[in-house]
């Protein structure tokens, strides 16, 4: 199984869930710097009337490497309008950057920016097309969603972002046979985890569905409950869930709460 080899990363079609502006800035900055390290072309969509403090230059600060990258066009800001969300336009820009010699291309923007110029229904189509483009090209996209805006759409969002999710304290990604989770699962993110698991188990044909916990450093009661509630539908339908390789202290809480005795749940190593 590939789950045990998975590590949280900054590549592919990623979903960044943020609670507040500092979280958003930290996530985007880390993603951009990762791209600069790869010498990628970095495209960033922002509204023409974005307040200066929300803009990409402000977000990245006066880092000399970033300033130079902007001056030579490696980092390029795209002003949002409806045409910039046309999948053909995106594809053309990506291919253009690749033909200039960049080894890969990265793109990011906040969902609110898109919703300011196109309907949400059309944006969903853009997300699906982007996911395909991330598979067919050396292309990574970081889609920024506030936790409030994403709460009701987690099912779609998790399916549309093939590289998984980044949140302040945990990361998750679909892997062969299930979902891999890393970081800290607690009261601040248990609802996101629950929605992710519900969506992932609904679309998986694998049984048992594997939840790779080997990179989970911290689990509290709300996080543990999310493992139960998020897999409830799958188990109610007769499916099984394997909680793969939890660290000893995580396994202790799972045992203490009786989750390992719950119908349809096994704890152990996936074959």
């Amino acid at each position, binding site marked *: 199984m590939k789950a045990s080899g998975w590590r949280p990363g900054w590549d592919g079609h990623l979903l960044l869930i943020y609670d507040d502006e500092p979280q958003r800035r930290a996530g985007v900055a880390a993603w951009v710097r990762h791209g600069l390290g790869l010498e990628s072309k970095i495209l960033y969509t922002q509204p023409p009337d974005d307040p200066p403090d929300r803009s990409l230059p402000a977000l990245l600060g006066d880092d000399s490497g970033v300033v130079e990258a902007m001056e030579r066009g490696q980092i390029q800001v795209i002003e949002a309008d409806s045409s910039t969300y046309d999948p053909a336009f995106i594809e053309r820009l990506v291919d253009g950057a690749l033909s200039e010699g960049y080894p890969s291309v990265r793109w990011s923007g906040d969902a609110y920016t898109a919703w300011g110029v196109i309907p949400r229904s059309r944006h969903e189509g853009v997300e699906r097309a982007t996911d395909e483009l991330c598979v067919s090209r050396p292309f990574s996209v970081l889609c920024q969603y506030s936790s409030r805006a994403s709460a009701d759409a987690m099912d779609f969002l998790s399916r549309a972002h093939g590289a998984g999710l980044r949140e302040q304290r945990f990361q998750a990604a679909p892997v062969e046979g299930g979902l891999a989770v890393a970081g800290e699962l*607690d*009261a601040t993110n248990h609802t996101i985890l629950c929605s992710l698991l519900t969506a992932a188990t609904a679309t998986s044909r694998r049984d048992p569905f594997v939840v790779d916990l080997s990179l989970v450093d911290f689990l*509290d*009661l709300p996080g543990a409950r999310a493992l139960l509630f998020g897999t409830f539908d799958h188990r109610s339908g007769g499916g099984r869930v394997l909680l793969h390789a939890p660290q000893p202290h995580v396994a202790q809480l799972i045992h203490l709460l009786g989750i390992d005795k719950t119908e349809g749940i096994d704890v152990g190593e996936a074959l």
Partner: protein
Amino acid sequence: MNTLGQRHAAYSHSVLVHDTDEQLIEGTRAFVAQGLESGGDVLVHGSRDRVDLMRDVLGSHSRLGYGLDEELYLAPMRTLFAYQRTLAERPSPTQLWVIGTVPLAADLSGQAAWLRYESVVDAALGAYAFAALCTYDTRTCPDSVIRGALATHRTVSVDLAEQDNALYVEPAVFLEVPLAQRPEVPDTPPTDAITIHDLDDLAAARDLVKVRAYEQSAVSPQCIEQFRVAVTEITSNGLFHGRPPVTVALWADVGRLTCLVEDSGTGHLDPMTGYRHPDHAASLGLWAARQLVDDLVIGCSESGGCSVLLTLADDQL
């Protein structure tokens, strides 16, 4: 106590204080016979030599088992909740009868910890068909332990019959007597402290525990991690059921972690909360936290809020 907080009709927790082996054998024989006649499962536990003695006297039976204290009675809260888990998971309503000697710890502190265990057995196990007879030998137990044993059992076995115990005191009261050695806040300044205003700060509190515990103590990573979970649950309770801000103060000693969590609510949390098995998710956080630490003492803060003191010592150090 069942889910309504009442004690199970087939529950009892008695003490037999004896001066001779003959009294112990007589008491044990009668208790085991009663258990087997009732159709229940019976466990006789003790030190290796005591168990050998009892095995010679009582022989074997399909529903009679023997257990060693060195395996069953390693740490008070671990033992208490292991019994609770066993009782909660028993498939049939068959009564479990247990007789034996709670091990005598090497020092007064350890002896007090086992007395505190005795004091809360009713709260943790009272909901089940469980009969326990705890035996204390006056020849080997200090007077303080005998007095503690008599203060922590509602009934006493006298001449092979159970009687109400006039010396019994309620757990919350017992915790305050010197015999119990109630865990207290260290008289030194905390290693570190933090004030929590909302859920987003929870991670900062557990990060503080982790960083300071690794820096200042030799407690094992496993102990540190389980302590972090317990502190998180209690802090979260303070935010949800008390009122913010919640202060978290940590003392990281070489082999021991102590944490005081105080909320700004109105207090009034029953000190026995979190011992009962949370069948309906009530007090689940406190119930889990109690199992992750050595002691969890509920009290009132100076500001009138609820205070919870958690301690965990690494028994490998």
